[in-house]
Structure formats: C-alpha cells, structure tokens
C-alpha cells in the first residue's frame, strides 16, 4: 500500500509542460534593430532606462507574478544571472504587476530568488513599447544598445550553451562563442 502510494508520487504528472530550449525559443534579429524607448522603476522607485546599462549586454524580461509561464522560467533566469556574473551582462526582469513591489518581493522571498533585481512597470507601458501580446517576453540588447534577439514565452535560460549564446549575441558576434 505504502509502496503503491510512493510510486504514484514519483510518477510524472500528465500534462507537465516543459520549457522550450533557448535555441528554439530565441529569434535572432538580423539586422539588429533599434529598441523602443522605455522606462521602468527600481524597488526604490528610481527611474531607469536602457542608457543606465550602457556598454553592457542586457537580457530584458517582461513578466508578472500572475503569469505561470513567467514563473516557470524565473528560476532559470535567476540561475542565468549567476552564470553571467563575470560577463558584464545584466539580467533585468521587469514586472508589470499592478500591485508592484509587494507582489514581486513576496514572490522573490518565497522562491529564494536572490540574484535578480526587483524592477517594476506597474502600468505595463514597457509591454506597449515593445508591442507584445503576451508575457513572458524577453529581449536581448547588445553592448551597442541594439536589439539583437527576442523570445516570446518561457525558455530554458540556464540550458547548457545558453551563456555562450548570450555572450555571442551581446558582443555583436565579435566574440567567439
């Protein structure tokens, strides 16, 4: 009886969706595009724009705590930011939660997300700027401030090879992968 219960618990759940591999989820833009102008806020309420991350690569992720696919990839993004620690790439998850700071903070605390900054856009203007239908949506911006790749839906950000792909993209192809 106990053994049967144990087996039932170990059996994979039907309908468990898996994250799409980054290489498949990512659409590279050739030629790169100028990103739209957008702003967002830090946890302290300070305004930020892309200019604040000049000379760095940026992985911009638009998400919300009520969005399951966003939550599904958040640990992978957290892990990615650890893996990118030494490479001058900022992983910037901007939440469009209308509840703002409290919702994001509660989620970070509950999930032990420690390597990502809290960034907010409660009126969702960033989603309008990028003209996206749904979230999560991610954009990779290279060191020259150009939009080089985008990704709609959740992706496996910490998959093997992801760091190399992102480094190649943000360096504008000047650095060997």
């Amino acid at each position, binding site marked *: *009886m106990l053994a049967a*219960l144990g087996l*039932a*618990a*170990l*059996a*994979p*759940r*039907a*309908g*468990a*969706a*898996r*994250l*799409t591999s980054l290489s498949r989820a990512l659409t590279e833009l050739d030629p790169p595009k100028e990103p739209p102008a957008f702003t967002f806020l830090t946890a302290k309420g300070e305004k930020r724009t892309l200019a604040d991350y000049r000379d760095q690569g940026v992985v911009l992720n638009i998400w*919300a*705590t*009520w*969005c*399951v*696919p*966003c*939550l*599904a*990839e958040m*640990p*992978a993004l*957290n*892990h990615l930011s*650890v*893996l990118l*620690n030494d490479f001058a790439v900022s992983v910037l998850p901007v939440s469009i939660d209308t509840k703002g700071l409290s919702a994001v903070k509660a989620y970070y605390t*509950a*999930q*032990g*997300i420690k390597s990502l900054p809290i960034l907010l856009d409660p009126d*969702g203007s960033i989603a309008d700027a990028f003209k996206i*239908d*749904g*979230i*999560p*949506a991610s954009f990779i911006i290279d060191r020259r401030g150009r939009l080089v790749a985008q990704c*709609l*839906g*959740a992706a*496996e950000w*910490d*998959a*093997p*090879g992801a760091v190399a792909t992102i480094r190649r993209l943000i360096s504008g192809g000047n650095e060997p992968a």
Partner: protein
Amino acid sequence: MRLLRSLSAWRLAGIAGAAAAVMLLLPWPARAAASGWVGDRHAAARLITAERATGSAGMVDAGIEIRLASGWHAYWRDPGAAGLPPAIDWQGSRNLAAAKLAWPAPRRFTMAGLETYGYAGGTVLPVAVTLERPGAPLVLHATVAYSACRDVCVPYHAVLDLTLPAGIAAAGPEAGLIAAARAAVPGTLSGLGLSLRSASVSPDGKGRSALALELAGPGAMLARADLFVEGLPQGAPGPPQVATDGGQGRVALLLRDIDSPASRLAGRRLVFTLTDGTDRAATFEAEPALAPPAAFAGAALIPLAVLGAALLGGLLLNVMPCVLPVLSLKFLYLARLAGSERRTVRLELLATGGGIIAGFLLLAAGLIALKEFGAAIGWGIQFQSPWFLVAMTMVMVLFAADLWGWISIAMPGSNEAAALTGRVHGRHSRAVLVGLFATLLSTSCTAPFIGTAVGFALSRGPLEIIAIFVAMGLGLAAPTLTAAAVPALVKLAPRPGRWTIWLSRIFGGLLLATAIWLLAVLARIMSVDAALVVAGLALALLGVLAVRRTAGGPIGAHPRASGGLSAALVLAALLVPMTGLNSRPGVADASGNWQPFVRTSIAPNVARGRTVIVNVTAAWCLICQVNEVTVLDRDPVAARIARTDVLAMRADWTRADASITNYLESFGRYGVPLDVVYGPGAPGGIVLPDLMTAPEVIRALDRAAGEARAAER
C-alpha cells in the same frame, strides 16, 4: 479578431433565426440576451442572460462567458500557483441590487511543476442578479479583468454592456449555457452520496505537511478524483493520492508536500473542492486536526536502532582516515608502555577512552548551545571556524614535536608538565588529549550509520543529543576500552625497539601532514595569506622547539624563555582569524561539469525532463574528497554528468552557508557528504550512499531519468 466576432454573430443569427417562428407570435420585441464579444483571437468575454426580459421575480440569471482558443486556459477563483482569476466590477449598472458570482468546478493544469486551477476551452461564470426594482429594465455594465495563458499569458480587460428590457422573462438562447454552468458549480458532499469522517494534517519531517481526508461513501466513483484546497497560507498542492478500500465505503485522499508547516494548518478553516473526474463536484469546509505521522509515533523514546547505529558508526570511525593518524598514536604510546605495570597501561587506555567520550560530550554541548541560540548546527561545523583550524594546526605541530622527542606532553610518570598545552597537569593528560583531538578531527569524516544517528540526534532535544553522542563516543572508544578491560591484549604488541623510533618519526610526519591539510582548509575559509601566516608561525614554533632540543636536551638551557616564545607563537596564530586576511565571501564558483548550487533550479529542470545531481561537499570533508576523486570527477560518471540532459550542481559547505544547511536539513541531514539525484523518474530525489561507487551513481542517474523515457513512449 474581427473575423471571429462576425462568425459568432452569424452563429447567433442562426439561433435567433430558429426561434424566429416562436418570436413572431410574441407581442414584445426580440432582444439578443448577450453582449458582443470583447477580446482577441486567444480569449474573449461577453455578458449573457438566461431571460430575454426582467420579468417580475426580481431576479435575473446572468453569466460572464469566457471563450478560449485551443490550448488556452483562464482561472478559477483560486488560481493555484499563479494567475488572475476573473474579477468583475458592476459599477455603472442600473437597477442592480446585487450580483452573486458562482464558480463551476475547475480542472488542474501543470506547467514546469507549477499547479494552477482553471478552465480550458471556455467557461460560463453564472451570476445571480437581484434587481432593485423588479419589473423595471436592467442595464448591466461589467468590467471584467482576467488573464488567459498558453505558452504566454495575456491580461484582459473587457468592458461589457447588456440591457434587458422589462417584460415577461421568457428563456433566451443563452439559457442553456447558464443552466449547464450552474450544474457544473460544486454542490454539497451529501449530493455526491459522501460524508466527511475526518480531516487531519501531519508534518512530513521536511518542514512541509500532508493533509489527509477520510470520506464515507461509494469510493469507486472517486478513482479519478481531484481535490483543490483554498485557505492555505501558501502553495498550491499537486493532485491527491486516492485510496479506496474496495467497497467498504471508505475513501482516503492524501495531499502531500504542502508548503506550510502542519502547526500552521491545524485548526485552520480550509475550503475543499472535490471533483470526481467527470462533471460532479462538491465543496465543503474542514478544520484539520494535527496528527502525528506514523513514523514519528513514540518520538519521546530514542529507538534502540538509532543508538545501535550511533554505536556502530562510532566504531567504524576508528578506521576512517580522519581519525586513524591520531588514534594510531595510541598504538605507538602503548608499544612504548609495553612492559610497564598493568595498572599504568590500563589507566592510560581508560584516559584515552575518557578523552574520546569527553570530546563527544564537548561536541554535544556546543551543538546544544548553538541550537538553543537558534544557530545552524551540523556535524563537523567546527571546521567552518578559522579558530578551530588554527588551534588544531598548532596542536598537531605540538604533537609532532612530542613524537620526535623535542618536547614531552605529560608522559605518564613524568614530572614535566607541558607548558604549551594549557598547563594540563596530570599523569595521563596526553592520553586524554589524544582521545579529545581524535574526536574533534573525526567529525571531518562521516562513517556509515553516523549520518542516521546525527540526523536523528540534532533534530531532537538536548537529552537525545547527549545520549546519541555518548553512544558514538563509546563506539569510537570501544577498541581502547576493550583493551583496557583485557590488558593482556597489550602484551601481544611487539616489544619497543628501534622500530618505535622510526614509527614515531613517521607518525610525526603524518601529524604535520594533517596540519598542512588543516591549513589548506583555512586557505579556503579565510584566505591563502591567512593560511601562509599561520604556516609561518607553526614553522617558527617547530624551529623554536628544535633549537630548544639541540641547545640543551629535553630540559633545555632556557626552558622558560623558549616556553614563553612558543606560547607567544601559538597565541599569535590564534590572533590570525581576527585579522582582515579574509578573502571576500566567495562568489559561487563553477568548475568543470559543476555549476554552483541553486536550489530553486532543481524542480524546473526536472519538470523539463532533465536529470539533476546535487553534490554537497566541503574542503574539510575527507569522504567528500574521496568521492570526488574516485567517482564523481572521473569517467564514467564525469562523462555522464557532462551530457546536456544532466544538470550538475555543487554546493560548497566549507564555509557556513544557511541555504545549504537548510537543504541538508530537508533530508534530515546535518553533515556532508550529501549527494542527491533528481529526475522525472525521481522528482523527490534519490540520496546516494555517503561512500559511493560509480555503478551506484550511474544506476541512480538511470533510475532518475528512466521513468521519463518510459512516459515519452
């Protein structure tokens, strides 16, 4: 979107057309009992009513219909892990006294290990509208906010308008939709022929809890049941395990791994919604009672098996590499004693045994104190302290000097007391110290059974900790105490001769090697500079002791001066941990196949079908190093871990790290090594043996990955 909207308008026109003949006979103007759809091609919402007019009853059956494209879903009132349930604002409506929303039973969606509850394909949320003035027209103005998700989520904001004229409340074309939705709203348990016998919650020993419901009634229909719980402080549990007793009229439902401690759930009002896998559902409330899990029954007593494990583990520590160099000293001292009085030999052995047990009592006392202060505790955590490392380094140097005959640490029968060992006066103090240090060093190893015993002890109160640690001490001291009981055994030892001198030199070298190892650990915990400074001071100490010896024999020309200088060197070394020679707290380092440990990465990776291996290790844990060198970092395991479908994470516990301590505790462990393999076939993890072999690791990796392959077929 426009295309779809016109299509549904055509469909409406069709239905309206079919009813046209009836309508023509009626004296009031026909009105569509539905607003237009507002949304896009993924999801849209509209307002509907069952009646064409307000009638005279003062009530109108309305509904919010949400249409969803294939693969999309919207959310129940409790969305589970995440989701925006539909929220409806009736502001701007006229002749509306109240609008009571009902929720059809949800179904479960699982994505990357996250459980959500909602509706696929579409749903109608019935709304019971009460009129302010029965018989007067009704103007409904609803602002509906909700989210719909597939691989992305979209927030929707639909403003819906519907006017219902005054007149006879004849059924409109949407009446059937609303009636079907009402039928899907959960009823009572008795409506399903069931009754609740008990609800209980119990801790699972990992900080989470399990909820159990026992129902009476025909259980067969619940074989595919699902259970949703509202009112939990946090978390969205997965599907229940259902056990029926084959016709006896009892059903048990068990929800495991609820992310709240049992104490927070006990007595809390929870709302349960039970679905039978078809279209019948019931909602009921219960306040679960706290129940001890079966495994914890009789927790007040220490199971004999645990004491046995402690004893056996202690015994096995005797042959572990952490203890062997120190305890082998014992053998040497005994050989030197051969031929002495039986009483001396016996006392010497008892002193070492006492030292060992005193060492375990010291460890137990330290751990109890730390636990009382709420600090993280564990087996071998003294190695995380630079003071301990420095002190043990200096002690090893002094013992080496003793073995080489440069100083004498309180030989039995000798009148000279060591100036350098805290002035421990006594005939058998060296024997006591050997036992004490053997114990302190032994914790850098874990022997088979030690993990079980320590895990049990540290999760309990002071009495249990002391009892189990003393049992481990008795195990480690068993060979010494046995020899003390039967001193004739000592006579079997060879007579001392030149070989004892050679052996002394070798053992002295081994102790210095131990000191070097301790310094290597210090280099990891503080910095290489700090380790080099301590190494310099230790060398200077050796130098002073050597000069002291050559200058004037064991007594020395200036015993006071050299003793003072040695004490100063030891003291200086102990000051090093207080200096700023700390390197910055390490950024988790990745090496080779291994990535830094991030606990939250485990579940999503497993949900994606990857196998995850977690290696919790520490520089001071000798068994961990053995595992790494002989198994983990060598083929075939290294090749297997390098594969892209395997995520290998290494958690370094060399320094104190609360998140790693928490992870260890989730397995009831308080020490390293801990190696766990996860995969679709083993989402809860397979714990590898402390001392592992390559085939065991490969088998565990296969098992963790294996069931996923079976499921894909």
